[in-house]
């Protein structure tokens, strides 16, 4: 087939393009992922029994804000990476800022206690399961975002995979916050981050394979 024939074929009977479809699809994937993670968390792990009391503590919101702001930054990166020719530049800072803020909070908390009280604060009571549970809860969100972004045109598949993985991890963490009893930044600024890192690494690895187009 000659190039002119291909052009004629592509242009023939062309349908108007729904410019808002990509946004709708990504919003749908995000909501589905968050809903699925919340239902899984509530059914499998249970809401924390003192949730009603915990929501009055500022640290509850600080922790939720941590996961939420990483998620917002990852969503923003995902949106940009899924369209060709949109620059990222120094915008990775959006992801780095909440992570750094978490570490600063951790340092402040650890500096205020005696040396032998630090390790128990860092490990909390649930460090063994926390990252694994976050990674598991991120699975539906991961699948939904893969579906949404595969309908786009990412030209940097590895980076896109990382952004999608981080977004899925952060979505899962938001849901996990409603279950997790750990309130100290010394705990969550490390173990939550580790949990989010797992889907991020998976995304980085599978990106070039799943985002070919």
């Amino acid at each position, binding site marked *: 087939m000659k*190039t002119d024939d*291909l052009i004629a*074929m592509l242009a023939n009977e062309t349908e108007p393009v729904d410019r808002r479809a990509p946004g709708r699809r990504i919003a749908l994937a995000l909501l589905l992922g968050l809903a699925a993670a919340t239902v899984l968390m509530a059914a499998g792990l249970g809401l924390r029994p003192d949730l009603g009391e915990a929501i009055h503590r500022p640290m509850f919101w600080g922790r939720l804000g941590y996961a939420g702001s990483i998620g917002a930054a990852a969503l923003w990166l995902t949106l940009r990476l899924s369209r060709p020719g*949109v620059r990222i530049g120094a915008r990775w800072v959006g992801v780095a800022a909440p992570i750094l803020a978490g570490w600063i909070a951790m340092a402040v908390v650890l500096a205020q206690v005696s040396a032998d009280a630090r390790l128990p604060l860092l490990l909390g009571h649930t460090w063994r399961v926390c990252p694994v549970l976050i990674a598991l809860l991120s699975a539906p969100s991961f699948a939904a975002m893969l579906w949404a972004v595969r309908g*786009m*045109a990412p030209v940097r598949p590895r980076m896109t995979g990382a952004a999608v993985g981080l977004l899925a991890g952060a979505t899962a963490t938001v849901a996990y916050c409603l279950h997790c009893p750990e309130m100290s930044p010394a705990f969550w600024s490390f173990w939550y981050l580790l949990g989010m890192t797992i889907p991020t690494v998976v995304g980085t690895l599978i990106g070039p394979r799943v985002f070919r187009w």
Partner: protein
Amino acid sequence: MTTTSPPEQAADGRSAAETRLRHCFVLGLGGDAVQYRLFLHDLGSHLRAYLRRRLPRAQADVEDILQETLLAVHNARHTYRNDQPLTAWVHAIARYKLMDFFRAHARREALHEPFEDDGHLFVDSDVEPADARRDVGQLLEALPDRHRLPIVFVKLQGLSVAEAAQRCGISESAVKVGVHRGLKALAARMRGSS
């Protein structure tokens, strides 16, 4: 035809080609087939010149990559953002397809290296640069019916979606989905055959 237009600049700093192409493209997105065809045709000439510059030693592959890139532009047309320069959007797609070619090519070269001293020489002199080596028509014929028939009826024969739906015995939305997925499947086959 590798005419390079002089770098005329409009008042807003955009080149004349950018303005013209973008105008046609945006009308095409709205469903104007004539403008869309103009866009693809103009874009094709620009891309051909670009690819010829980038591939001094693989001129025979230029038309194949060009066709692949045009199909990619078509399949990704919903990802264009009105506030971005069309040049940046197209360039990112062309670069992506070019890198894909380089990767596949490097692999192929690596496989053949022990047996051939220079695989290019023969190929380059044998094929006229303006002819595609890969036949997209054949790839299209090889698609499953649910993809092939909607494309043949709507995109090649120019039937309306309603007529095609009647011929295929499926709903109109199934025809639209068939065209959409079929062109994506075609792009995947083009990748596989490069």
